C-alpha cells in the first residue's frame, strides 16, 4: 500500500516537473510577452498542483499534508495574480498582443522580445 | 602594573559585569538616541553613554590590574560552547582608547553636527555613532573569532553611512564611502574565510581554544591559509600598506566627528585584532609567522611609513594630508610590532596611543575651524593662524607631535621605536623612521607654514575661531599631547602592560 502510494505520488510529481519544464520551454519559445506569461503561469499552477498532490500522496495523512495544502492555496492565490499583474504592466507599457495585432509579426517580435 | 584605584569607584556587582556593560552601554545608548525627540537629547545621550563606557573601561582596568586577565562568559556558557570576552592589559588599553576618544568626539559633536548634518538626521547620526563605538568596543574585548567579525561589521556598517553623510559638505564623501564599503566588506569576508579555515582545522571559534589546538596541528595548509586570509582581511580593514587605498578618501571627506573618531580608533582596532591573531593565536615562534613578520610585515610597514608620507607631502587638501599620514603612522606601529620583542611591541603601542591622541587633536582642530569655513586646501587655510589663533595653536601642537618634536607625545614614542629597532639590530628601521619623520616635517610643515606664515588672499573666505564647546575638548586633547610628551609614564605603563600581555613573557 505504502509502496503503491509512493510510486503514484512520485509519478504525479514527475508529471508536474515535466509540466514545469514544458512551461519553461514555452517561456523561451513563445513569440511575445503575453503568450510567454500564459505559458509560465499555467504550467506554474498546473505543475505545482500536480507536484503537491504527489507529495501529499507520499506523506500520507499528517500535518505535512495540511501544510502542503496551504502551500497550494497560496500558490493558487499568488501565481495568477502575479501573471495578471505582469500582463497588466506589459499592457500599460504599450505592448500590443501578438494575436490581436494588425501589424506584421516582425514588429511584434521586436516589441515582445525586448 | 597600572592601578586605577583612584578612578575605581563602582560597586563590585557592576565591576563583575563591566565587560558586557562596556559594549551594551553604548548599544542601549544608540537605541535610546534613535528614539530621542531631538538633536540635543541625542547629543546628551551620546555623551552620557560614551562616558559610561569610559567608566566601565576604567573599572576593567582595575580588574585587569588585579587579575591579569578578565574572562566573561556571555550567557553563562563557558567556551568553546559560549562566546567569551577575554580582556587582558592590551584589551584594556584599546578599550580605554576607544572609549575616551569617543567621549571626546561626542563632546565635540554637539557643535559639529549642526554645521555638517541635516538637523532631521542628528538623532540617527548620534545613534549610528554610538553603534560604531559599541562595535569597536566589542571588537577589542571579544575572545571569539566569529564574534569579532560580527562586531567588525557592527562598527563598519554604521561607519559607511556616517562617512557618506559627509556629502553635505563635499559630495566626494559618497564615492569614498562606497569604496570603503567595498573594500571593508572584502576585508571582512576574507577574515570570515580565514576563520572558516581555522574552524575547519580546529573545530572551534574561541581564540584561546584555537591557539591551543593549532599548536598540535603542525604545518597545516588550512592553518596557513587561515592565517593568510585573516591577515589580508584585517590588513584591508586596518589600511595596512598597500591595502590602504580606501582610507584617505574615506577619512578626508567624512563629517568631522567621524574623522576624529575613525582616525584615532578604527584602523587601530582592526590592527589590534590582527595582532591578537599574530601573537595570540599563531605563535610568532612558529616559522611561518616568524617569516611573515620579518619579511612581509616589517618591509611593508617601512614602505608605508615612507611612501605614504611622500604622498601626504604632495597632497593639497588638509584632511587628505592627515589621512595619508595616518597610514604612514600605522606603518610605524607595525614596524614596532614586526620586530617581535616585548620592548618593540610596547614602543609600537605607545606610538599607537600617541598617534590616536594627536590625530584626534588635528582632526578636531580642522573640524572646529571648518564649522563656519568651507576651506579645504592649503591655500584656503592661508592666514588661518591669525583668524583662529586658539584652534590653530592646538593644531600646531598636534602637528608637532606628528612630526615628533620633543616635548610632545610623538617624540617619546618615536624615541622608543628607534631604541627598540637599535636593540634588535634593525638599522634599516632607524633609517626608515628618520626619513619618514623628515617627510612628516615636510607635510606638517607645509600646513603650518600656510596657517601661520602666509596671508589670506584678499577676498578669500576667512577662518573663524571654533566655538568654546569645541575648544574645550580640543585643548584637553592638545594638553594631553604635551603632557604625555613631558611625562609619558602613564601611557607607557599601559603600553608595556599591553605588550607583556601580548607577548606572554617573551623578551
Amino acid at each position, binding site marked *: 500500500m505504502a509502496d503503491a502510494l509512493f510510486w503514484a505520488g512520485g509519478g504525479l510529481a514527475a508529471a508536474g516537473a515535466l509540466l514545469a519544464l514544458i512551461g519553461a520551454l514555452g517561456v523561451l519559445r513563445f513569440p511575445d510577452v503575453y503568450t510567454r506569461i500564459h505559458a509560465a503561469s499555467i504550467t506554474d499552477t498546473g505543475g505545482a498542483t500536480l507536484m503537491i498532490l504527489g507529495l501529499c500522496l507520499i506523506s500520507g495523512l499528517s500535518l505535512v499534508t495540511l501544510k502542503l495544502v496551504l502551500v497550494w492555496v497560496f500558490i493558487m492565490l499568488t501565481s495568477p495574480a502575479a501573471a495578471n499583474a505582469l500582463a497588466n504592466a506589459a499592457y500599460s507599457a504599450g505592448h500590443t498582443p501578438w494575436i490581436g495585432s494588425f501589424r506584421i509579426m516582425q514588429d511584434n517580435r521586436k516589441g515582445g522580445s525586448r | 602594573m597600572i592601578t586605577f584605584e583612584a578612578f575605581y569607584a563602582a560597586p563590585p556587582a557592576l565591576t563583575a559585569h563591566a565587560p558586557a556593560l562596556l559594549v551594551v552601554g553604548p548599544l542601549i545608548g544608540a537605541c535610546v538616541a534613535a528614539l530621542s525627540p531631538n538633536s540635543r537629547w541625542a547629543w546628551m545621550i551620546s555623551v552620557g553613554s560614551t562616558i559610561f563606557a569610559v567608566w566601565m573601561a576604567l573599572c576593567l582596568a582595575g580588574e585587569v590590574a588585579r587579575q591579569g586577565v578578565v574572562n566573561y562568559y556571555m550567557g553563562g556558557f563557558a567556551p568553546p560552547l559560549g562566546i567569551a570576552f577575554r580582556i587582558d592589559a592590551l584589551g584594556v588599553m584599546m578599550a580605554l582608547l576607544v572609549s575616551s576618544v569617543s567621549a571626546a568626539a561626542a563632546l565635540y559633536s554637539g557643535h559639529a553636527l549642526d554645521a555638517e548634518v541635516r538637523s532631521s538626521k542628528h538623532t540617527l547620526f548620534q545613534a549610528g555613532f554610538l553603534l560604531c563605538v559599541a562595535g569597536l568596543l566589542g571588537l577589542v574585548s571579544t575572545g571569539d573569532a*566569529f564574534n569579532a*567579525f*560580527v562586531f567588525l*561589521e557592527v562598527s563598519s*556598517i554604521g561607519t*559607511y*553611512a556616517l562617512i*557618506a553623510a559627509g*556629502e*553635505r*559638505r*563635499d*559630495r*566626494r*564623501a*559618497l*564615492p569614498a*564611502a*562606497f569604496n570603503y*564599503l*567595498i573594500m571593508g*566588506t*572584502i576585508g*571582512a*569576508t576574507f577574515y*570570515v*574565510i580565514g576563520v*572558516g579555515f581555522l*574552524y*575547519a582545522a580546529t573545530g572551534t*571559534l574561541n581564540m584561546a581554544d584555537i591557539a591551543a589546538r593549532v599548536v598540535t596541528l603542525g604545518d597545516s595548509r588550512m592553518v596557513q591559509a587561515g592565517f593568510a586570509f585573516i591577515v589580508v582581511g584585517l590588513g584591508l580593514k586596518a589600511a595596512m600598506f598597500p591595502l590602504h587605498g580606501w582610507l584617505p578618501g574615506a577619512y578626508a571627506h567624512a563629517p568631522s566627528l567621524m574623522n576624529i573618531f575613525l582616525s584615532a580608533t578604527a584602523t587601530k582596532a582592526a590592527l589590534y585584532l590582527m595582532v591578537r591573531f599574530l601573537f595570540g593565536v599563531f605563535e610568532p615562534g612558529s616559522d611561518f609567522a616568524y617569516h611573515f613578520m620579518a619579511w612581509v610585515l616589517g618591509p611593508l610597514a617601512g614602505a608605508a611609513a615612507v611612501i605614504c608620507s611622500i604622498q601626504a607631502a604632495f597632497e593639497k587638501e588638509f584632511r587628505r594630508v592627515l589621512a595619508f599620514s595616518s597610514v604612514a603612522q600605522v606603518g610605524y606601529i607595525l614596524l614596532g610590532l614586526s620586530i617581535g620583542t616585548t620592548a618593540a611591541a610596547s614602543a609600537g603601542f605607545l606610538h599607537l596611543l600617541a598617534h590616536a591622541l594627536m590625530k584626534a587633536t588635528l582632526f578636531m582642530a580642522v573640524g572646529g575651524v571648518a564649522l563656519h569655513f*568651507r576651506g*579645504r*586646501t592649503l*591655500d584656503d587655510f592661508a592666514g588661518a593662524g591669525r583668524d583662529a589663533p586658539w584652534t590653530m595653536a592646538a593644531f600646531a601642537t598636534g602637528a608637532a607631535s606628528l612630526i615628533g618634536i620633543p616635548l610632545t607625545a610623538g617624540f617619546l614614542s618615536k624615541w622608543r621605536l628607534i631604541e627598540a629597532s637599535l636593540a634588535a639590530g634593525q638599522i634599516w628601521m632607524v633609517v626608515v623612521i628618520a626619513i619618514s619623520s623628515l617627510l612628516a616635517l615636510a607635510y606638517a610643515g607645509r600646513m603650518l607654514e600656510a596657517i601661520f606664515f602666509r596671508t589670506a588672499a584678499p577676498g578669500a573666505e576667512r577662518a573663524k575661531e571654533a566655538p568654546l564647546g569645541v575648544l574645550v575638548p580640543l585643548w584637553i586633547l592638545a594638553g594631553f599631547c604635551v603632557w604625555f610628551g613631558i611625562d609619558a609614564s602613564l601611557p607607557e605603563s599601559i603600553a608595556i602592560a599591553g605588550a607583556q600581555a601580548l607577548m606572554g613573557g617573551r623578551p
Partner: protein
Amino acid sequence: MSAVLTHFNYVAVIVLMMGGLYILLSTGNLVRRMIGLAIFQTSTGLFYISLGKVSGGTAAITLDAVSAEGQALAARAGAEQVARYGVEGVIYSNPLPHVLILTAIVVGVATLAVGLAIAVRLREAYGTIETDEIQALDRVLTAAGQVEPAP
C-alpha cells in the same frame, strides 16, 4: 580521483566565491559591484555550510530515534555509523556553521542595503554610477579647486 569527489563541494564553492570577486572587481558599475559583493559573501557562507554537512545526517532539529523518520535515517546511514557518530541514535549535521551563516547572511543584506543607498545618492549627486565617470568628474572639479556638496 577520490580527492576530486570528496572535495568537489569546496572547489565548486570556491569557484562561486571567485566569480563574485571577479564580478565585483571587473565592473565599474556600482550596482553590479554590489551584486558581485553579495555573491562573494553568500558563497563564503556556502563554504561554511559545506564544512558542516555530515553525510547521512539530517537537519539539527532533534528527532526521536524510534520515530519513523529516525528509523528511516538510521537505515540509510547504517548502524555502525549511527553508533559512532549519532547523538541519541540520530546523526545530525553540524548546527554551528548554520548559526554562523545565518548571521553572515544578515550582515550581507545589511551591507547590500547600505551600499545601494549610497549608490543611489551617488547617482543623485553625480548623475552617474560608473566609477570612471565619477572619478573624471571629481578630477575636473578638484583641478578647478571647487567642491560640490551633494544635492
